[in-house]
């Protein structure tokens, strides 16, 4: 039997099938927990935050248009919840972020990008938590949650070019951390 898509299940939830929401939670619980702890750099209160995301998602589910993809929508809710948590704790994330003010040139994805991605994947786990939140988030969404640039743009409400620029800067920072750690080992 063909597995129902997220959007089909959401349509059932919207029609009043509360049990179908259990399936949505099963599909996204681990993803959201992973996103939360990588983005927030903490394992504390993760369960509460993810629960909060699921409650907000259910409360607002009738505003979701089932002709669109569900995954960016729920990640958007998660992003807002986690950013509020970061703000509550550290007072970061400015409304006018320098990366989104000016038109930026799209970062050039070179032929080495895949090779570099593989190299970076290995080191990612170790160094990603050192990244500033705005770079960490795009790296986490792309490499760990497999979201495309377009989807990340929809989650974060930033231009796709800005996603590319943050990705490049994030990767460069990761490489810098890696090189620094190599030097220290030597």
């Amino acid at each position, binding site marked *: 039997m063909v597995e129902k898509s997220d959007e089909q299940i959401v349509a059932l939830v919207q029609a009043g099938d509360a049990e179908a929401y*259990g399936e949505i*939670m099963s599909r996204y619980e681990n993803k959201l927990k992973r996103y939360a702890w990588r983005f927030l750099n903490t394992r504390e209160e993760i369960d509460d935050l993810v629960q909060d995301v699921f409650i907000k998602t259910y409360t607002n589910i009738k505003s979701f248009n089932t002709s669109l993809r569900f995954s960016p929508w729920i990640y958007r809710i998660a992003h807002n919840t986690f950013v509020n948590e970061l703000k509550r704790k550290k007072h970061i994330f400015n409304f006018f972020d320098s990366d989104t*003010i000016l038109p930026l040139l799209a970062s050039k994805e070179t032929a080495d990008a895949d090779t570099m991605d593989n190299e970076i994947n290995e080191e990612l786990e170790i160094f990603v938590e050192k990244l500033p939140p705005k770079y960490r988030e795009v790296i986490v969404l792309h490499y760990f949650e497999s979201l495309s640039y377009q989807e990340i743009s929809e989650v974060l409400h930033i231009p796709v070019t800005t996603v590319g620029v943050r990705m490049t800067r994030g990767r460069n920072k990761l490489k810098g951390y890696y090189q620094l750690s190599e030097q220290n080992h030597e």
Partner: protein
Amino acid sequence: MNNIQEKILNKIQSGEVYMKPKWHFVLRTGLLLCGVVIVLLLAVYFLSFAIFFMHQNGIWLASDFGFRGVSFFVMSSPWLIISTSLAFIILLYVLVHKYSFSYKRPLVYSMLLIVVVAVIGSLLMNKTFMHQRLGNIIEGHQVPMLSPMYRGAMQERPEGVLVGTVVELLKEGFVIKSEKDEFIVVTVTEKTKLPPDIKIQSGDTLIVFGDRKGDYLTAFGVKTFDKEKLRPFKNNGKQNGQLKKVKENNPS
């Protein structure tokens, strides 16, 4: 089913957590759209009023007189009104930012788009003579905020702007009878920019920009002015320089 899922499903079944109805989102979107329209109209209104103000006071014309004229124009512009319009433009950006047409573009582009829409809207609004009509309606009434705004635009000119009819030519300038029936001695220097190809004569209607001290004004720019646009300003009880006195002090 794990702990989180069980908890949430229990809350849903007990009615503690519930879906907001569709009409709630429709209403919210409707209100947001109304807010966007109202804020856009306010931004356009204030911007068009600023343009109207500059046209009415004649300060718009000062920008033709080089650096001095441009700095006079900048200094005399209604910055409070322009800032109010800018504040509404920023508010508009905040309101529309949740929509993909806004957030998918860099902030500069989105803001520029909103500013362009506001500027075009305000120019169109000025074409309708709405402010002129509104000013005429408000005149004689005390409407909070609007009365001082329109009085400032239609019944006063900034210090240093003089509109009137030349009544006497002097050796180093002329005497002008202003809209307030004041007689002002205008001094013309080498630096004064005069209307090209026209010799100022008695009876000419002019707009003069310069530094005014009492009944005397040293001009940095003079332009011919449409007689039809002369306005009988209220004198505020001030009756200044008598023509006779002026003549005595400045024999031609």
